[in-house]
């Protein structure tokens, strides 16, 4: 493995085996305090050159669209790409096994130590930080809605509906995801159709001046 060096598409490396995937993802996960994504990009793209940055962003976009934790989906796809289901298994095990053991050990220790006010206090403080981290994540996600084809009002409506439904009304998640999801999907499909029609009309308008200059030949429309 080379240390950090410029990675062009032509110079991409590949993992040597499923075991290499497992080790790489384990090391990566163990560095990921508070979240693994940034470490994943640094390791897989910058340091090891297993993916180009473009590929990483692409795969992550797909991972986000799918149900399941984003980095876990990402590791699956990367592992699958190199060694099929064995690679996927190696990657996901690497991503989760050691961290799982650590976090369960922490949970078990906490059970025992929770009676000490300092320990309970520490967890409480970390809980406050966790709330802040998640709110920050929510605000960052808000930024990604900027280019959403639904437009700001529909996005705000759907987002607020989801927030109220789950936080205030405590409705089951299934109702919200399926109900609002279908609504959002329907609205978006309608918007996509409207936008495509608009684009088609614009294309027609661009072609028209030429065809009218040449006498409006029939069949010159795209």
């Amino acid at each position, binding site marked *: 493995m080379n240390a950090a060096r410029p990675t062009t598409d032509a110079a991409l490396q590949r993992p040597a085996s499923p075991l290499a995937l497992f080790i790489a993802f384990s090391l990566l996960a163990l560095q990921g305090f508070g979240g693994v994504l940034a470490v994943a990009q640094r390791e897989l793209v910058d340091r090891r050159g297993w993916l180009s940055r473009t590929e990483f962003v692409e795969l992550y976009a797909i991972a986000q669209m799918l149900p399941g934790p984003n980095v876990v989906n990402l590791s*699956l796809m990367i592992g699958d790409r190199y060694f099929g289901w064995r690679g996927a298994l190696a990657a996901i095990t690497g991503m989760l096994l050691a961290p*799982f053991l650590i976090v369960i050990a922490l949970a078990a220790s906490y059970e025992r130590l929770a009676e000490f006010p300092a320990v309970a206090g520490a967890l409480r*403080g970390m809980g406050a930080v966790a709330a802040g981290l998640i709110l*920050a994540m*929510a605000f960052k996600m808000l930024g990604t809605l900027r280019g959403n084809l639904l437009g700001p009002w529909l996005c705000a409506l759907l987002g607020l509906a*989801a927030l109220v439904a789950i936080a205030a009304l405590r409705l089951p998640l299934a109702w919200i995801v399926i109900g609002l999801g279908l609504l959002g999907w329907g609205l978006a499909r309608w918007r996509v159709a409207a936008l495509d029609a608009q684009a088609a009309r614009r294309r027609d308008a661009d072609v028209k001046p030429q065809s009218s200059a040449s006498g409006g030949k029939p069949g010159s429309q795209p």
Partner: protein
Amino acid sequence: MLNTLPAGDLLDLFLHFLMLSLLSIGGAMSTAPEMQRYFVVERGWISEADFTTAIALAQAAPGPNVLFVPVLGFQAAGLPGAAAALVGILLPSTLLSLGVSRWGASRRDTPLVRAFTAGLAPVTVGLVFATGWLLALPFLGDPTHRNGALVLIVLTALVTLKTKLAPIWMIAVGAVLGAVGLA
């Protein structure tokens, strides 16, 4: 706090997580409010404080934050609960992701898929806001630590949004402040 659950409840837990797996578009954090509703409110298997602990531990510990899920399972039912929760939350989404990445990824730009991602995105954002809100809420009702906690929450959010400071430092600060009773 360390409980076990009868086999029937354990199965119910597993099945519930299987369902949540399919609903967890945008990650496990969007399903956290539902898990709190199920574990704390509906079933009473763990306390509100336990739930916050699970999220905090998963954020503090290395690895994907989805690991708060097996902690919830562990709190409710020990190691079998942890295993059931983890496998439950991952199995359906994993199979689906593998399937889609092999056979469907190339069709990302069809109008149907574009509409799907666009339509669901604001819902997911709303859900993550809900998670943040639900995690902050208990602190509002805690008169001793309310002010310190609120400051910590807001500061953390601001620092995360405005700087590149790694979360681990803020988590450490939170632990110290909480331990001395300031937050």
